[in-house]
């Protein structure tokens, strides 16, 4: 029953023209970054709904980095209350986001209610989507505490220091240096060491392997800490937590500079937390990075875009961002939403069409589209009695990668060849180019964003490559389907090469990986036809790599000429 209701909701959505774009932006969750985003977008003249998971607007990380953020938060709260463009809904959360840029239909849960609401753009601005977890949970009352707890016991003035801390003679820190996301916690750790030195009389030691100091004045803070007398011990490999007969806790590590094992006993051992995402429910379909935070680790999406046009990420939900960076994210997301909904974001995609009559409703295309641009839409086939739902591409979300076209088993999807420059990517045109191949030619399918630029640069800087190489430009090597490959071999060419973006830098996220899988599959088929697998190649080449391009094609020529 519930399913069918969702379906009707879905089909109700209409193809969006710019004028039909909903001028409302949904911002969630309402941490400092969320509140700032809402205010910023309001200044640009759009209406905002601010979703808050808890009953009241709050910010659960305010204490980590800067005590000052509490005041900032309070002043933001006041401004939000006064702002007529902002509507706060709490406690509520997003269940999923259907639809495409300009016309999202967001399923929202409020109290026990679940309902759909339309928004033009969605900004996910959640500190609430992250957590700092203590690395050691089972060390209660042993003198080990998390950095956050120390921060609370310490306060920010000499008078707020808790007696627990005041009693301690030696305090040792182990900073978390888990890599990618350790900036913010290192910064707060450094601040705490300085505060300890200023407000108490204890000895402070810091154990660390790599100290992150690359932004936010951290190098200066590191200096300040050393001047105040904090002792930094840099270790190799790992540290161990130890204890002695008296029950004191300590830490053992190998000091790199002294090349000696160091043991240090202390009254309080502070262990830096790990900064992790806490995304429980995900109806966003926008992908994650390698650490599990929102937003794929793909340079084309930075700073705030996601694989779905119209959904933006701000601040900590996309990784460890300090306040400066978060603020820059806020401005980026605000401008992007504004551009999208004011029709300034000129979108070049949407030139791929489904021939509804041919669609067998296998849903392959819906599954492969990296940008979530395909949904089922009602279609009444004149040849058939009843109306049915078929795949439909929403131009405002499509980026013309051609992945759907290559994967559709019914060959129902193609680039619209009426529009002049784009007919280049239509099946008709690609097949024509293949038909023109001569027996000795090496066709190289080049991604327009990477390998094709490398090939152009090769010509520019006068690198020689064989005239037998025939370059066929495609929007993404994910566009090249099996038919193209076999048609090429039918022309008796010695080999076929696909050249796309380096792994994890595909402009269409996974087009190059799909192509790689397809090549693997095609090689099996070719083997069956007596064609050696070395004759079908795939390489990953960055846009500047003219030399590499020339080397790869020469090697390929050599390989298949023998």
């Amino acid at each position, binding site marked *: 029953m519930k399913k069918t209701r969702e379906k009707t909701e879905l089909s109700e959505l209409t193809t969006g023209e710019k004028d039909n774009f909903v001028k409302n932006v949904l911002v969630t969750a309402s941490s400092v970054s969320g509140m700032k985003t809402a205010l910023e977008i309001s200044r640009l003249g759009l209406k905002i709904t601010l979703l808050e998971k808890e009953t009241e607007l709050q910010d659960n990380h305010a204490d980590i980095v800067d005590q000052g953020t509490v005041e900032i938060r309070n002043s933001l709260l006041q401004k939000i209350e006064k702002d007529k463009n902002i509507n706060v809904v709490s406690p509520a959360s997003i269940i999923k986001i259907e639809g495409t840029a300009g016309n999202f239909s967001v399923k929202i849960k409020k109290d026990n209610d679940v309902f759909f609401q339309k928004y033009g753009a969605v900004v996910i601005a959640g500190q609430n989507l992250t957590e700092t977890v203590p690395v050691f949970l089972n060390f209660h009352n042993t003198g080990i505490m998390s950095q956050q707890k120390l921060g609370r016991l310490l306060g920010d003035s000499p008078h707020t220091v808790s007696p627990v801390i005041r009693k301690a003679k030696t305090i040792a820190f182990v900073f978390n240096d888990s890599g990618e996301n350790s900036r913010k916690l290192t910064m707060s750790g450094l601040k705490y060491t300085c505060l300890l030195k200023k407000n108490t009389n204890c000895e402070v030691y810091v154990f660390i392997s790599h100290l992150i100091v690359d932004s936010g004045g951290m*190098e200066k803070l590191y200096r300040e800490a050393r001047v105040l007398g904090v002792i930094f011990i840099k270790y190799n490999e790992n540290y161990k937590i130890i204890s002695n007969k008296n029950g004191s806790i300590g830490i053992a590590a190998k000091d790199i500079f002294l090349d000696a094992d160091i043991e240090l006993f202390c009254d309080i051992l502070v262990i830096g937390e790990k900064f992790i995402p806490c995304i429980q429910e995900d109806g966003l379909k926008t992908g994650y990075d390698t650490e599990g935070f929102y937003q794929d680790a793909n340079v084309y999406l930075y700073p705030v875009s996601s694989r779905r046009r119209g959904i933006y990420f701000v601040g900590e939900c996309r990784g460890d961002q300090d306040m400066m960076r978060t603020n820059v994210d806020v401005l980026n997301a605000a401008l992007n939403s504004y551009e999208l909904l004011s029709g300034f974001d000129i979108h070049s995609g949407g030139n791929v069409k489904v021939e509804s009559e041919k669609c067998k409703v296998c849903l392959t295309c819906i599954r492969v589209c990296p940008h979530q641009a395909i949904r089922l839409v009602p279609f009444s086939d004149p040849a058939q009695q009843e109306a049915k739902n078929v795949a439909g591409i929403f131009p405002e979300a499509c980026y013309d990668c051609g992945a759907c076209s290559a994967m559709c088993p019914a060959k129902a999807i193609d680039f619209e060849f009426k529009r002049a420059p784009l007919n280049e990517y239509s099946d008709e045109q690609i097949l024509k180019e293949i038909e023109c191949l001569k027996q000795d030619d090496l066709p190289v399918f080049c991604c327009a964003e990477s390998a094709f630029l490398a090939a152009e640069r090769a010509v520019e*800087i006068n690198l020689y490559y064989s005239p037998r190489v025939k370059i066929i430009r495609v929007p993404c090597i994910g566009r090249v389907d099996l038919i193209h490959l076999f048609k090429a071999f039918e022309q008796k060419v010695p080999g076929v090469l696909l050249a796309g973006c380096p792994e994890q830098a595909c402009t269409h996220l996974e087009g190059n990986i799909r192509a790689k899988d397809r090549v693997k599959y095609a090689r099996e088929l070719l083997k069956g036809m007596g064609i050696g697998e070395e004759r079908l190649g795939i390489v990953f080449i960055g846009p500047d790599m003219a030399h590499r391009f020339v080397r790869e094609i020469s090697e390929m020529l050599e390989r298949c000429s023998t």
Partner: protein
Amino acid sequence: MKKKVLVIGAGIAGISAALELAKCDFYVYLLEKNASIGGWVSSFTCKAHDKCTKCSVCVAKRKIREVLVHPDISILTNSTLKQCHGEIGHFDVEIEQNPMHTDQELQEQKLAVHAIIPAIGFELFDVKQYGRLGYGRYRGVLTGFDLEKTMLENGNLHFPVNNTHAPSIAFIQCAGSRNDNNNYCSRVCCKYAMRFALLIKHLNPAVSVTIFFIDIQNAGKGFAPVYEECVGSIQFIRGIPVEVIENPGKRLEVRYENIAQGNVKRDVFDFIILSAGIVPRPGTWDLARKLGINLDEYGFFGTTGTFNSNDTNVKGIFTAGSCQGPKDIPDTIAHGIAAAERIVEVFAK
């Protein structure tokens, strides 16, 4: 009539801001003191081996291509700002354009703009000041920037063929950063060193790569896999060498302190790459004076407001990019767009 904005400096920061403003119906004058645009990035190369190492050069170059053809952005090369008066909404600026050919005269142009974005970028620390590291004296000692250029032009570094030694290269980090004068971290050099280390190893598997460092800066979205790959294949040595000299075999001998053993260690390499730090451009002070904006303690453009890194003390002037402090390309682009937002916000109806 379109609102007009003057962007000073056509590096990736200025370009990002200009593109965004032009999108939002502004007309942009993009001022560049050199003959070509793009700033440092235009001489950088993609640093992917088979996997992308997230250097973002491709994204920056795509923006450069875009800005060249945008109808609402007028690019004024060989030009600098001569004077500036006024306030937000109506700045009167005078532009000086150097002639392309020596027989032509210096051209001056007066423009009226609504807002200004200074985005003049950074300068590399002059590593010749560290004479003992041999830059400028030995051919094999390069800066990170020289390496970028060489790799872009030649696609590889050509190691001398030698039967007695395996070819090798070392990176020396923090040349001109994190010291008493510049007590900040340049942010980009650890990462590009690691990216190049992987790329060079990929192109020349026989080469051994060493990185001398103080702390490796491996934070930043998407960098964890790159760092992990480095840990397996690259030698990391903590400590900055004291001296580089050429040995009789024309190879470069690096001397560094081994504190544990209390002696000096020596290693021999074919190339030494100095990760020269990021410092303010010499012109920063002059431009700040003309615009009436403040500098920070290091000589970068200063900003006002809590956690805001675009607003200057003059209303209507917003800084963008690495002229405000060291930034990598993604941060620079984001900062440029943020500066554009500050302007759109003021003038949007």
